[in-house]
């Protein structure tokens, strides 16, 4: 029997596999028992109603997709009043992804979520535009990322706080260190990377809003590298995300330093992908004689080679 449990700060998950924000919803309970997941992660909730972006919102590329959904949603009030009762039907820990346009708004919303029964952790999606910085994403630079994190930390002192980083920065390790110092309990690495596709017949971008976020297997080597860099930069747990579709992919992320993984786009192609990943992880450990999946974390990092060499 392989022990699949993983710890993210004070939170213990039954296994290290969970969905990626925005690619998951209670609708998936039509396909399998969601309580088999390590955690549930909501799509990002915003303080106010948002209609979302123009169509088309998704387009296919070689082994990946571009999306520009625009975080449509009915706002935090509606989420707490209407969506939370539905989420509370599940036993797996619920991680609420939060997106906001200002530092103050991040703090307000975090406080409200901390006061909502059934929220196990907040995942701050700081890849969204920061209205106080000309619309540049919080996650692009260490300072605004740290400011948002610190404000949430103060507003929701006891609540596990994960911060989701963006690949659209020149130095993700610096951003990871900044949010760690500002009080994050974990970093989630990474959100989608900016991409573009053009319809040559119309000479227009394939997405209604021009550029979009790139995800899926094609993005995996970049996401894995970001996890590897962050795991060497911080002491808090790293949660890996980007292109994971199989158990082997998940093992790569764990070995690169992740303590848990999220599966996004792969669930579109195979709604049961997360179950396959859990089962394959267990089999991999059993075959390799690894008692606890947590032993995989960081096994391929340079520090592990050095230890092995000693």
């Amino acid at each position, binding site marked *: 029997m392989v022990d699949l449990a993983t710890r993210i700060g004070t939170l213990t998950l039954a296994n290290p596999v969970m969905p990626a924000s925005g690619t998951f919803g209670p609708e998936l309970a*039509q*396909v399998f028992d969601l309580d088999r997941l390590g955690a549930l992660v909501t799509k990002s909730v915003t303080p106010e109603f948002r209609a*979302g972006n123009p169509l*088309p*919102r*998704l387009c*296919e590329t070689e082994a990946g*997709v571009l999306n520009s*959904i625009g975080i449509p949603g009915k706002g935090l009030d509606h989420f707490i009043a209407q969506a939370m009762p539905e989420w509370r039907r599940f036993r797996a820990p619920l991680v609420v992804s939060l997106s906001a346009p200002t530092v103050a708004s991040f703090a307000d919303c975090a406080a409200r979520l901390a006061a909502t029964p059934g929220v196990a952790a907040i995942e701050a999606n700081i890849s969204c535009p920061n209205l106080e910085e000309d619309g540049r994403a919080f996650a692009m630079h260490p300072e605004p990322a740290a400011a948002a994190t610190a404000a949430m930390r103060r507003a929701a002192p006891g609540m596990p706080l994960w911060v989701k980083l963006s690949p659209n920065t020149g130095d993700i390790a610096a951003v990871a260190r900044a949010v760690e110092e500002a009080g994050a309990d974990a970093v989630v690495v990474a959100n989608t990377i900016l991409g573009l596709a053009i319809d040559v017949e119309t000479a227009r971008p394939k997405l209604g809003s021009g550029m979009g976020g790139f995800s899926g297997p094609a993005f995996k080597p970049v996401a894995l590298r970001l996890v590897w860099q962050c795991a060497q930069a911080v002491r808090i747990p790293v949660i890996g995300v980007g292109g994971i579709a199989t158990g082997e992919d998940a093992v790569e992320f764990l070995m690169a330093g992740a303590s848990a993984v999220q599966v996004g786009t792969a669930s579109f192609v195979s709604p049961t992908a997360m179950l396959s990943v859990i089962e394959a992880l267990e089999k991999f450990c059993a075959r390799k004689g690894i008692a606890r999946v947590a032993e995989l974390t960081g096994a391929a990092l340079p520090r592990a080679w050095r230890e092995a060499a000693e």
Partner: protein
Amino acid sequence: MDLGAAAFPVAEASVTVIESAPVGRRYHRLLLDAPDLSARSRPGQFFHLLCRDGGGAGPYLRRPMSIWRCGEGRPLGFLFHVKGKGTTALARLREGDALSVVGPLGHGFRLDPAWRRILIVARGVGLATLAPVTEAAAAMGIAVEAVLSARAEADLMAPEFAGASGAAITALFDADGGSDVEHVEKMLRARFAAARPDAVFTCGSNRLFLLLQRLAAEHGIPGQVALEQQMGCGLGMCFCCVRQVRDETGKVVNLRVCAEGPVFDLQAALAW
């Protein structure tokens, strides 16, 4: 969703192709051995198909496809236009090949046992979506009249539409101007006057949808339309498949074709 009794109403399953054959010049039909899924499927629902040919080649995302044939003891069938990468890969499947399907998905058509007579207006491959309605209606003793519009005779597929339902079909072709909106309008008005249907159904053409919406409103006839939209997850999780629909208060909202549709009230749906 018509959830039925199953704990997990939507399945991700690998099923076997029992027939794969071209239909006319531009279409293709697939019959699958999937007794459980076929029995659970309802007209107007759809499946999300992994379009990989026998060798595993095909586009990354699945493709939504209406149920064309279903029911207790019958193979699950799809009828589609061979259009781009996905449908080309599907059409390359051969008897005995495996196909990964997710479904049944979405809300199907609603038929009222009190109805005596319905009218179906479909264009092109839209008839695949409406075909199972004819059989369901026939089984409930509801008479079906259908107006099918197509580019040319070779594209009509009347037998594929009607199956064993005995639906009365009027065919309209682009070639002879029969499918012009003005001509269809005249024809429908004459029908409505002669034998007013209890409900109307449409799929496959924005222009025919607008016409039917207008005429049905004028005559106070309820109607349903099956919409299409590009999909990511097919399950309601990604919000990429939205269409504008009027809610009860008349406000225009974005609804997900996969989750709130693909069948919508004829008057609530907006043109696309």
